[in-house]
């Protein structure tokens, strides 16, 4: 992970058949990211990283509106809990990682 602070935006898929509580998972992710100085949360605009909280492994988030942001799909509660590890492990990959 770069020393520079990276902007992160949390978004959702549509949640047609979510396998877990995505709203609670997003709140959990938000709390963890807020506690880490490496990240700054933004709610609008194009971030460095998009954390896409998706209800299933289909992870159908439309990334087109986020420019070149890396899209990190979260598809279960465990991934939400491990978000900091996942982001730091991901470093700066050019493609979304599978979780």
């Amino acid at each position: 992970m770069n020393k520079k602070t990276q902007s992160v935006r949390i978004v959702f898929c549509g949640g047609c058949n979510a396998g877990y509580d995505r709203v609670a998972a997003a709140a959990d992710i938000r709390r963890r990211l807020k506690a880490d100085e490496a990240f700054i949360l933004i709610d609008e605009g194009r971030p460095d990283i998009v954390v896409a909280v998706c209800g299933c492994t289909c992870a159908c988030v439309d990334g087109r509106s986020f420019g070149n942001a890396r899209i990190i799909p979260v598809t279960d509660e465990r991934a939400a809990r491990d978000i900091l590890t996942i982001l730091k492990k991901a470093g700066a990959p050019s493609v979304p990682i599978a979780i």
Partner: protein
Amino acid sequence: MMMTAEAYEASLRRLNLKVYMFGQKVSNVVDHPIIRPSMNAVARTYELAHRPEHEAIMTATSHLTGKKINRFTHIHQSTDDLVKKTRMGRLLGGATGCCFQRCVGMDSLNALSMTTFDIDAKYGTEYNKRFVRYLEYVQENDLTCDGAMTDPKGDRSLPPHKQKDPDLYLRVVEVKNDGIVVRGAKAHQTGAVNSHEVIVMPTISMREADKDYAVSFALPSDAEGITYIMGRQSCDTRKLEMGTIDRGNPFFGGHEALVVFDDVFVPNDRIFMLKEFEFAGHLVERFASYHRQSYACKVGVGDVLIGAAQTIAEYNGAEKAHHIKDKIVEMNHLNESLFCGSLACAATGHKEPSGTYYVNNLLANVFKQNVTRFPYELSRLAQDIAGGLMVTLPSEQDFNDPETGPVLKKYFQTREGVLPENRARILRLIENISLGTAAVGYLTESMHGAGSPQAQRIMISRLANMEEKKKKAKALCDIRDDE
């Protein structure tokens, strides 16, 4: 601008609808206890559009204005839009456990976006221009539209113009300089009294002799001359009783109505087809295919039913029995098979000359054919798992009665930690979906809505490419017809 659920309810209160039920005029439609749950279900389509966790499915970008709109007012611009429509159906079916009524308007708008374009291409008319202006109005105000297609039809062996009573199909009775006057009725109108607008379409293919019946238009739902007569639903008056348990789903429901047009004036700018009889079948087919795709909602209701079946199995202490597990597997198999069908017809859709994306017609019909069957089997399995108590359980009043209540709580106790009240609630929910008020939507609407089973079989017969199939078979066993 997208309405909130609260704004939607307030907008309905401003309507001046003429509604009858049980032989009486309904003075307060929104708060009537039998109608109210259906209003709640439509309100959910507004509420979820404002939630970030559902925004990606529930909203779209208008191709007319570039603004964010509720997906129910959107014209599909890609196969991704069609897939999202399927996903939205499942989401809302699961969130309401019933018919949420708003898909029919969306399907009418999409079908008209194509048919008006195609009529104009042939005749140089301006229906599409009118329609686009109307669509912008619907999108801007986030309106709920009733898509009114099904005429009463009288003697099914006779075309519209040969019916003994000419009003058994809705028709044009007068053409004026500034509009037309129509008379007739539309039956089975889902969500009619929860709608701001009613969009009328013909119900069958027509020939020249029926051209007065080839008419499509949109009107405010409270236009002068429109009357609504509410349909009954199994167990509907439970909503008038004290308590909520016996309703099964105390929050949401659907409704249908007969909508009568008694010499109603339609201004020219609201007419989208007038006597172009050869396009009646065109419009019917397009609407029907979209609406067949819309039955993805039953997958969401199926999710609820499967969840209820698993819950009652656990309450009864039966969830580990092999046959119960197998029945739950079968229910999931059937439900996900339905989802596959709706997704498939969406993902393999195509762009029409108007620019609107249209579902794969063959697959939409195959999907809907399965919808006429699978929910019945899902209901049978749910009733099997629930046990007979689902239909022999005494009323909520009996549970609350000081004399009978303790007796019922003693004899209807089950696995430790499970409240008899909760057992009753889940049983009533299964009853609601499989033979109560919600069965209107989950079963009979699955059978006949968007066309009865035979309608899909006719389309499958027409669309399946039999010549290519024969060629493949003959090639593999070395039959050479040209020899």
